[in-house]
């Protein structure tokens, strides 16, 4: 049959391409992956991502050439089910989770993915951020229900592996750890984080299956009614969290009294393998939209250390920046919202965004390649005396009328 796929160059936007390929069923070929680099070919984390995709699908073929510079992906059927995956610590779980969020609703059977690795790092959106912003966005599209959640939870397994890999550990310590873990099993609320270089966290993402996605009109963001946040710290002084909260509140209190930032200090086995601290801030509007910002300490031994006060202040400023950009969907979930609009019914969907990020812009191009959908992009200038931040972008499109072809009809 005449289904010749699409060809791209370079390793950038690999996730977008593969995800869209899996959703549209179009074959994709990616050439010249770091062909001029000292270490040509796919990196470990990319190979790891492809492996995850392979676990989720059924009947897909992946061809990678000798040097790893050419990747051909013939998508299969999105299968879902229970998947366990050890993510590469080069990238955080957010890197993998972003793709899973896009694929999750279109699986054959409800997805329950257990991802292990780095929960928080600097390059990718952290799990906390995705949990607090991406899920509400998807709920707007009718993807919700009982089993729709991202859980950061303790992992037996990773600690066990750690124990086994460390033969020098004495028996007593092992027993202590085992005891601790048993107590953890009894309290599933306990969060286990894994900061950047080491990792050791675990995330469970469950997502129900939908046949269709409903069109949305997200045009009025509403005013921000409250700000919530989590200041977390692992393997550092517990005072860090308080110091972060203090400084962040100092800035945000100028706008709103309803601010609450939880401090979350992790000890022992819950704290992963590396020290660090960070802050995630989420602003909720009256209409139920979420804008977020986050900031982390630099990983141990990489770059200059950052003071928690600075971090809190900078993170608050980042949130202000995000609010300045505005829109109904925050900048890190723009592409998710646009994808769900594209995959909607053949109806008009609208969403108001802040300025488009470069990632989103490329995503729009990819959507055009894979689904032949072009968005109507209208810039909304703020009025003269309006004090609602910068330009907004109103994205309008007609969905492709996508229906989940993986789901079984009974």
């Amino acid at each position, binding site marked *: 049959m005449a289904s010749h796929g699409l060809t791209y160059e370079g*390793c950038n936007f690999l996730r977008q391409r593969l995800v869209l390929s899996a959703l549209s069923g179009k074959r994709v070929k990616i050439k010249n992956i770091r062909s001029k680099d000292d270490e040509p070919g796919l990196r470990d984390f990319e190979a790891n991502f492809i492996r995850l995709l392979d676990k989720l699908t059924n009947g897909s073929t992946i061809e990678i050439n000798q040097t790893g510079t050419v990747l051909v992906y013939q998508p299969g059927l999105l299968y879902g089910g229970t998947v366990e995956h050890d993510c590469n610590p080069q990238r955080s779980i957010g890197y993998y989770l972003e793709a899973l969020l896009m694929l999750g609703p279109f699986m054959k059977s409800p997805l329950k993915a257990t991802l292990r690795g780095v929960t928080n790092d600097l390059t990718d959106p952290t799990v906390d951020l995705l949990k607090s912003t991406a899920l509400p966005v998807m709920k707007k599209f009718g993807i919700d229900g009982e089993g729709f959640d991202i859980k950061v939870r303790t992992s037996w397994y990773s600690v066990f592996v750690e124990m086994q890999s460390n033969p020098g550990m004495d028996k007593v310590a092992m027993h202590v750890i085992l005891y601790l873990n048993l107590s953890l099993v009894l309290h599933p609320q306990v969060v286990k984080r894994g900061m950047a270089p080491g990792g050791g966290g675990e995330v469970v993402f469950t997502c129900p299956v939908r046949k269709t996605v409903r069109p949305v009109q997200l045009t009025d963001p509403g005013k921000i009614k409250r700000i919530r946040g989590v200041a977390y710290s692992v393997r550092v002084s517990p005072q860090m969290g308080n110091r972060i909260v203090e400084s962040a509140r100092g800035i945000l209190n100028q706008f*709103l009294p309803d601010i609450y930032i939880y401090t979350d200090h992790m000890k022992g086995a819950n704290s992963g393998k590396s020290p660090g601290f960070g802050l995630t801030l989420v602003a909720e509007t009256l209409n139920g939209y979420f804008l977020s910002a986050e900031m982390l300490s630099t990983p141990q031994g990489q770059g200059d250390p950052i003071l928690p006060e600075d971090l809190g202040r900078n993170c608050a400023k980042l949130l202000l920046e995000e609010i300045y950009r505005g829109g109904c969907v925050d900048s890190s979930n723009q592409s998710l919202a646009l994808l769900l609009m594209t995959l909607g019914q053949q109806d008009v969907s609208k969403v108001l965004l802040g300025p488009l990020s470069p*990632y989103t812009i490329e995503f729009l191009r990819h959507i055009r390649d894979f689904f032949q959908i072009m968005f109507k992009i209208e810039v909304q200038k703020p009025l003269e005396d309006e004090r609602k931040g910068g330009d907004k972008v109103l994205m309008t499109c007609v969905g492709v009328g996508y229906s989940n072809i993986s789901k079984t009809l009974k």
Partner: protein
Amino acid sequence: MPFKKQKQHQQKHSGPKAEKKKLKKQNGSTEEDERKRNPKAFAVQSAVRMAKTFHRAQDIKTKKHHVPVVDRTPLEPPPIVIVVVGPPKVGKSTLIRCLIKNFTRQKLTDICGPVTIVSGKKRRLTFMECNNDINSMIDLAKVADLVLMLIDASFGFEMETFEFLNICQVHGFPRIMGVLTHLDAFKNNKTLRKTKKNLKHRFWTEVYQGAKLFYLSGMVYGEYQNQEVKNLGRFISVMKFRPLVWQTSHPYILADRIEDLTDPERLRTDPKCDRTVSLYGYLRGTHLKNKGQVHIPGVGDFQMSDVNFLPDPCPLPGTQKKRALNEKERLLYAPMAGVGGVVYDKDAVYIDLPANHVKQLQEVRPTTELVQSLIETHVTLDAKMAASKVSLFSGSAGLDPTDISEVQEGLREIHVWDAHTQTQRRKVVFTGLEEEEDDVSGSSSDEDDDGSDQENQEEEDDLSTFLKEVRDKSEKATKGSTPPVKKRKLEEMQGEEEVIAEAPAFADSEDELERGEADSEGEGEAERAGDSGHCSKESEEDSDDEEDGDEDDESMEEEIGADDSDEEEEQGKYHSGTFKWKEGLQQKASAAFLRHQEAAPNLRKLVYGSVVEAEDSEEEEEELGGLFRVNRPQKSKKVQADALDCSHFNPDISHNWELEEMLNSIRDCFVTGQWEEGQDAATLLKEDGKSSGGGAFCSLYSELKSESDEDETDDEDQQVKMDDEEVQKNKRLEKKRRLKERFDTEYDDGDATYFDDLKEEMQKQAELNRAEFEDMDDESRVQYEGFRPGMYVRLEISSLPCEFVTNFDPHYPVIIGGLGTSEGNVGYLQMRLKKHRWYERILKTRDPLILSLGWRRFQTIPLYHIEDHNGRHRLLKYTPQHMHCGASIWGPITPQGTGFLAVQSVSGVKANFRIAATGVVLDLDKSVTIVKKLKLIGYPYKIFQNTCFIKGMFNTVLEVAKFEGASIRTVSGVRGQIKKALSTPPGAFRATFEDRLLMSDIVFLRSWYPVSIPQLYNPVTSLLLPVGQKDSWSGMRTVGQLKHDLGVRNKPSIDSLYKPITRAPRHFNPLHIPKELQKALPFKSKPKLLQPKGKVPRDLKRASVIREPHERKVAELLRALSTVHHYKKKVAQRAHHAKHKEFLQQKEKDEEAKMKRMKDARKKLYRIMGQKDQKKQRSSLKGTPQDD
């Protein structure tokens, strides 16, 4: 007998009866409702029953609901496809001819391909005749909106009719109207009536009860009677249609015109080369995306190389208020039948001028003039395409080709200039024209805007006289001649744009920078204004370009534009380096530029327009940048192929969140900030307070709030607002509206059900869908939503097989069906299938079958299976007779829930019903889980107690090892388990059983073996066959057919043959019970050890007695006497019996009488007692009040 006169009725004139009647006469008639007149009769008798009736009524009401769907029908719907079906010689063509004549007053002799007509002010029809080929029937059933099913009444139903009905049922049931013809063949009126009735009822059972069946009674001069055709036409033109799932989710086109665009030279050298063909037709169903994948049933899958929309060849009349169509508006369009007058193409117009179509020609005269002028300019195709705009002027101006091209470029320049700022002076592509171009734009703006005159005068000197002339001429041309309306509109728009563009153009130029030095305060504002102008202008400019209809041009233009911007930036840098007065602004300018990038003044171009050249420039830079790499801020947003894949959006460094103004800029994003007029809680409260009479708290709060508001907002602003009458009035109106809304929500929404809400939601969505792109021109609209149904489109497909063109037969429908995402792939499909009950045979697994699924017809090899109770899919050899079964095939991916039908062959006409099976797609799982039963048989060769050695099941030790622990069974039902392999003989193993086996037992192992589905997907390419043989497509043959054709006969194995069964009688050894056991057994079970009787010795035997004659006589007498005695005794006994019976009866009677007596007496007694009691009670009751 004399008739007795009855007493006459005497009316009462007075008394209560008369009164009553009088009252009734006066008032009674007013009460019509029986329930009110006679409320007692309608009172609730039983609550349960009432509840039941209520439930029933609700059930019936709810059952009528359909799942609400968003109404996606376009404002101008495509013509309705009416397919005329029937067996040959039933009068299909005649009916179409009559209907066409009825609607358009034109006669069409040959019905070839689809015929489109305008039937009313809001309705167009496309007639298509369906010939007697099952391929055509299948294809047309998928696109039909209405089916006219012709039935020869003199013959009755034919197989084709039923086949077509079943095809329709599978692919979504379109409206079906039966038409009975050949009714004049009946001579007898009664038989006619009977036949009509019979046919009608049969038709009703097939379609639905009460389906419309039309009778065409007879022919007049070879045509049906006018009145009957008119009635049929009326029915058709008021018919409503329901949306069908497949049709509303896929775009499709019933091609009514086909042109071969292949290069003639290529054709000459290689007549069998793949052809480039353009197909034309109305788009139906849903939006069609350009470059999508399509399937042409009977040909195959193709990628569309291009799609355009053309002016409607058969447009609906304008919206004039009149009842009927006039003669001009009754259009007819049938290019395949040689009718259609003028047919348009993207770059050409074909004119066919038969004598009777002069009116149509007149209608389109202005356009043909344009076309003629186009034809005059002998230029290449590309140039011609580009010239679609220019030739407007060429007609009047008469420029030679080179001038034309220059003018064209000049015009193009203007566009480009509009798109960018005035700083754009250094253009690379159009060398030598830069200056002029700039000036041209300047001067063109001066027509509209006086404000720019000064500047223009300065630059006037440079203006090349030649171009000026050209421009003047072009202006004249536009004013003088009358170009098509659309073009003129375009130019007007351009003009308007320039007006808009003027002010911002200043703001963004160097002047602005100069000003910026002076007053940095106003700069931001001005810039923002500049941005907005910039943006709107560009977007409009874009749409203009698109209107030119040339994508090539556009892309080229965009490239140029982008190049320019790059160039411009560089130059800007250069300038800033040279001119010192600009240096101070470097920081600010870069910040502004960054903000531009973020806010993206023309995002559309940024996102979709300039992808290609951005990457190009990147590469270029890299090649250069082996030595030095210029780190420019704008490069950061450009695509970097090997950059880090990260979705983070880095914050804008130019924003300093320490500053108070920056913080102020987002203050209103919070609930604590200022609210809009309508939403402000304070004002709302105030209004509420007023309307409800006012509350102290409310007013106090609102006062407080308003005070605080005053602090925040500009005093002046409020002052202005307060003064303004208009504003006040608007406010009042707004308030009223809000109040009404609130009232409505409170009172109207009372009994809205879930269904109503859902429906309303759908309605809202439909309105939004309509409104969103309404005010856009078609060219840009098409880009966003795709080609919408109702458009007349032209598809170009570049690699059609040559047979499609050479063997083209307009009698066969050419359907272009759009495919959804991933419907172009092939994979495994799991389906539910049932053999059709009218099909005579059952279907065999692995026999190739032709399926019609989605748009496609293809041959494939199905495997039938059924699901066992434990979820196992067991392979079946044959389909069950009257049951559903599963079927798995290798075929095109089609969404679940799509129906399909199967036929065994599409060639020829068979007497039998051809549809073999129907079903629905359930799943698209790529892992196939069908298994078939495999029985491995072995024989015991050594038997111990419960253990035995078995051989013959496996061949090697390894095989046995794989099956260790598997359960096995003997034919007699003794269960066991495989234990371990034995070394010799190879494949033998030890097994244990629950009982001892016999050497004659057969042991078998039941296992399941996965079956793979053969990957055969063979599209039925019936349209590629030569004309006249299109119904003779044959694909892969079944094994049975092959054997039959090749004369191969199976030699059955000797073992499989039936032989007479010879059963050797079995001898059973006598049961031997050990003595010990015998002793222990209870007596009942003990074998009875009775010795068989031996022979009685002679002496022990009794001798027989032989009587003497006297003795015999005595015996005789005695016997006779005893007989007599017996008889007498019997009679006496009978008499005694009767007597006794009588006695008993008597006794019973007496007893009864006695009982009655006693009962009466008792009754009497009780009554007396009761009376006494009552008396007592009464007296006691009486007694008490007396006491009081």
